[in-house]
């Protein structure tokens, strides 16, 4: 590379000028969170660990039946994760809570599934637009656009999307759909919320659910931990949680309150905010290459053996 000090500085100056002249609005990160999203509020203090939600989810999504039936509660002996054959699982935790009357340890149950983040990292990571956040709140997966790169799986802070590794021909990314077809076609709540016998899952507009969660906190002093998980975590999620036990004891991650797509997207956007910025870059690089090539040709005149 024959790039001289002076030419390098010239180039650097052009680059700096480009960066400075880029309007601030293109740099500022904009949340695309839908204002009127639906969601679910999961009240852990109400969940009795019956696994009916898992069963209803399995049926409505036509997933394969598990080896151990849904009324087999021995599955709670180990912690499970959602995978390509189950979009939601309920796990049991023993936080040290003891029954006042009987003196026995009391179990708490936590249902996990895709949180349908308001500004989802999976959507931001997806390079083909196969993952998208709908205005109804659902984070939608479009198998036709998916190229199987699995960036969404890496990006998701909750480690939710799973991949059909067993399916060699048409593998898909699998995750909770928020039952959006039930919602859009039949105006029905998600199957897991409908089946739940104790209304541990309340379905509604996210804004209503947030108000409801705060009302429950206010009306039942001492019952809950004073926190609505998902209100602010990673910029907010469509699934919200109330708990009577500290969230950290129930396997909930402590996550940043800023949306995760913010940093990488800001970087990308400042680089590609205008079409001409890559064009300019390539023109400059082309110019450098041309000059180098010319200099090299001058220094090494063609060798006679090359001509045939």
């Amino acid at each position, binding site marked *: 590379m024959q790039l001289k000090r002076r030419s390098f500085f010239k180039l650097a100056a052009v680059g700096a000028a480009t960066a400075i002249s880029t309007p601030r609005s293109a740099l500022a990160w904009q949340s695309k969170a839908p204002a009127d999203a639906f969601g679910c509020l999961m009240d852990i203090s109400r969940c009795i660990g019956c696994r009916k939600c898992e069963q209803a989810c399995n049926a409505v999504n036509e997933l394969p039946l598990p080896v151990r039936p849904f009324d087999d509660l021995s599955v709670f002996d180990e912690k499970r994760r959602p995978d390509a054959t189950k979009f939601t699982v309920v796990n049991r935790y023993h936080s040290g809570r003891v029954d006042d009357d009987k003196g026995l340890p009391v179990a708490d149950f936590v249902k996990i599934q895709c949180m349908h983040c308001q500004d989802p990292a999976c959507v931001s990571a997806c390079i083909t637009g196969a993952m998208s956040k709908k205005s109804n709140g659902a984070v939608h997966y479009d198998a036709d656009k998916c190229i199987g790169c699995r960036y969404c799986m890496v990006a998701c802070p909750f480690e939710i999307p799973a991949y059909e590794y067993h399916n060699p021909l048409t593998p898909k990314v699998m995750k909770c759909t928020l039952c959006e077809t039930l919602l859009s076609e039949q105006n029905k*709540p998600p199957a897991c919320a*409908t*089946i739940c016998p*104790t*209304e541990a899952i*309340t*379905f*509604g507009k996210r804004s*209503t*659910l947030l108000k409801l969660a705060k009302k429950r906190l206010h009306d039942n002093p001492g019952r809950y931990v004073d926190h609505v998980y998902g209100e602010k975590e990673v910029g907010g999620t469509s699934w919200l949680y109330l708990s009577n036990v500290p969230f950290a004891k129930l396997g909930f991650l402590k996550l940043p309150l800023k949306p995760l797509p913010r940093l990488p997207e800001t970087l990308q956007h400042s680089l590609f905010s205008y079409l001409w910025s890559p064009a300019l870059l390539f023109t400059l690089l082309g110019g450098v290459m041309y000059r180098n090539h010319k200099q090299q040709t001058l220094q090494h005149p063609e060798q006679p053996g090359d001509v045939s």
Partner: protein
Amino acid sequence: MIQQLFRLKIALLVVLSIMLMVQPSLAAIETVAAQNDDVVWTAPGQEKARQRAQQIIPMVDKVKEEGPIRRSQRLHATELSIKDAKNTYFLLDSPFIKAQEDHYGPVRFNHGQHAAASGDCSICHHLRPADNSSYIGDSNHPETVRCSACHQQAFHPDYPERLGLKAAYHQSCTPCHQQQNKGPVTCSGCHLNKVPEHKQLVKLPEKPDALQVTAECLRCHEDEANDMLHTAHWQWRGPSGHTQDHSREIRHGKGTTALNNY
């Protein structure tokens, strides 16, 4: 002597009441049989309970705001008691729940038994309508409107904090059964599974004998048969401490000499 007379009186009363109970239903069966050969016997009161379960009453909009203690005291002061309950037997089979899912048969709920055991109506009738207008005509008393007067469809957009009927049942029944150590706490303890129509399933010869019938049941219900072998119904050898007045007399149970022991 007096005791014997007393027993005789009781026995007579029992026979009489059974006759009274059976007679109307026998009459009903005869009329049905006249039109239809497939007679299905139902207990008296069952049909009425079924009809009651289907009723939908207008939703109570506002409830009276008062604490649970105040409410309990006020309810006691009204001198409402179990005698004021119009119906003892209920089927919990509301269209509000059926509209969303239909996995179980109706739950049979003995209101009288629950009222007598708790002795405090406010345990279940925990709130009342703010005014008297919205319930009249349905319930005996504004203080004790039925559950579905307030708890109807789940996730009602206008009443987001109100539980749907299904959750209202589960959230009050289950914890109470657990705390009191009384009553069922598992799903099948209250819910009958939906039983498929057996007419097509059962295959029997023209005039089957008893053993053929049992064998046909066992064709599908082998697990149930094995379970039954471990229950008192099979192993009962008497005497039973729970058989009033006969605790020392009955010597033959299924496990020994009782008939029909196949």
